[in-house]
């Protein structure tokens, strides 16, 4: 038995209000603690500094914005004695190298598990997901242990007669940092590739084989081509955090020769009087990353809309 009868229009209007009310607390939280903070960063970046206390003076009104912080940062990027430029370049280089290496390792693994693992698929998936439950810090700590001068990495190398002198792995090698980045972010890439390769229609592969293509050409013309969007998504998912990473290099090398742009942002923030420049550099980084971020957000939102239809 219906307990009460509403007029439909009345109910709909009240429903709208109810849904908005349910979303309100979360929406307020996001506006106050996500949108406003980014505006605060903009205000600090376009603001000045108190000459006496060296504290930042944010310019909340866009009419009062000044570009002095950006000019200062720009000189540190390209001017004589620039120290941020090399860090930017290094970030780009490390991110590109680590992404490429991660893809070269992740793709065959994901390909094997989707196509050939058969009944052992659950086992392989569990093993692939396992690193997600180990914290990033612990995974880096594990490598710090192994890469000590008297650690296992050198012990294995000398046992195999590959090196006579113990290598100082943690003494500022770019290769060590890249290895750390690959190790840290590859689980995400593998799962994205797994999900994408799993959606490649097996019938298309069969069809290509039936039409006389060899296994290698089938792979190149069908599987690889169909997985291009997945590769792109995976690269975005790993490259974005890599570009903002400032702790892997600190843990695995801790020398100025491997500093990245994130370290420079952190350094400027702890330097009295340079907070405005720190904010400006952070904004520049955001502007560089905005293109891939927007690309990814658009893809995600469109995916959501696709599921709706």
């Amino acid at each position, binding site marked *: 038995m219906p307990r009460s009868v509403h007029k439909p229009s009345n109910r709909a209007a009240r429903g709208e209000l109810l*849904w908005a009310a349910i*979303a309100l607390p979360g929406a307020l939280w996001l506006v106050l603690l996500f949108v406003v903070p980014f505006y605060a960063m903009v205000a600090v970046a376009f603001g000045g500094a108190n000459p006496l206390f060296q504290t930042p003076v944010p310019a909340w009104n866009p009419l009062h914005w000044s570009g002095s912080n950006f000019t200062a940062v720009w000189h540190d990027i390209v001017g004589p004695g620039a120290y941020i430029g090399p860090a930017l370049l290094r970030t780009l280089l490390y991110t590109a190298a680590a992404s490429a290496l991660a893809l070269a390792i992740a793709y065959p*693994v994901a390909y094997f598990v989707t196509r050939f693992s058969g009944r052992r698929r659950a086992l392989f998936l569990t093993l692939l997901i396992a690193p997600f439950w180990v914290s990033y810090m612990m995974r880096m700590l594990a490598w710090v*242990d192994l890469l000590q001068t008297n650690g296992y990495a050198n012990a294995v190398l000398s046992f195999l007669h590959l090196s006579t002198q113990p290598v100082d792995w943690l003494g500022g090698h770019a290769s060590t940092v890249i290895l750390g980045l690959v190790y840290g972010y590859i689980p995400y890439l593998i799962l994205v590739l797994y999900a994408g390769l799993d959606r490649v229609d097996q019938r298309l592969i069969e069809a290509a084989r039936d039409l006389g293509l060899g296994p290698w050409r089938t792979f190149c013309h069908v599987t690889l081509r169909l997985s291009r969007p997945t590769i792109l998504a995976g690269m975005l998912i790993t490259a974005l955090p890599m570009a903002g990473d400032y702790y892997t290099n600190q843990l695995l090398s*801790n020398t100025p020769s491997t500093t990245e742009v994130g370290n420079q942002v952190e350094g400027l923030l702890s330097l009295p009087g340079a907070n405005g420049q720190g904010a400006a550099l952070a904004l520049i980084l955001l502007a560089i990353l905005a293109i891939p971020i927007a690309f990814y957000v658009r893809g995600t939102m469109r995916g959501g809309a696709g599921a709706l239809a």
Partner: protein
Amino acid sequence: MGATSVGPVRADQSASARMPRLGLRVRRRRHPYLLEAFTWVYLAWSMVPIGIAVLFSFNAGKSLASWQGFSLRWYLTDPNQSVLHDPALHAAVVQTLRLGVLTTVIAVPLGVGLAIGIDRWRGRSAAGLSFIMVSTFVVTELLLAVALSFVFSQLFTFVSFGTTAEVLGLVVWNMAWPGVIVRARLLTIGRVYEEAAADLGASRPSVIRRVLLPMLAPAIFASAVLVFASVIDDFVLVNQLSSSAGSQSMAVVIYSNVHGGLAGPALNALATLMLAFSLVLVVVGWAGYRLMTRGERTSGASALGQIAGVG
């Protein structure tokens, strides 16, 4: 290319000759042993270092390279440097769990509300909110941390750095988990049950409480587990928004002590504890999810039955 080279062979085959060829088409797929070996090497590479790190947290000596016998020295018995007795390590464990609980308790209801609201209350503001929510997911964590530290030092100066600032920031960073997961679930269950319940005379709040929330329970639970796990591992936000040693989490303590400081098996013990927390979460999460989705098919129908007074 491939097809042209095959073409001539096909051309001189009569229709009758094709029949046996069809039988041969069932190719025996050779197992790719090389690919499998590569996969196992990758898996070993991904796990062995962690295994060694865990092993050495039980080392009786200070070394991280030579095994000196099993002991719980770095967990319990060492009077100064064990996780139990070193005040910094001890505080880090407590702070990590505190942040995990507080953030989960706040972020999950907010995120669930946001997901329901965005999904049901269509319109431009809902689309804008959805955009902001997804953005929190992909924006670089360091940039969010920097922005938050500016807003707390320049605008919301009543918020003190330390636990308060950390929780406020972690909630922003993790709200998208329930947001995205619950929204996906809302899309799969559709509006059939809700409309049926409304036709049976249930009011909107009662529909939410008796139909929607029970059906969303597994998704809410799963997202709570993910939020908690992600807070335990969080480094960047906690590092940037902490004030003193007392408000540092396990990840921050490991980071700041790897070079000098407390280096040694005590850090491995701390990391192993983090791993143990995560494993407990995996088991609880898996068991809980199984339990909650057991009667999946019937939950919507039984809720409707109760509303109609027949269930």
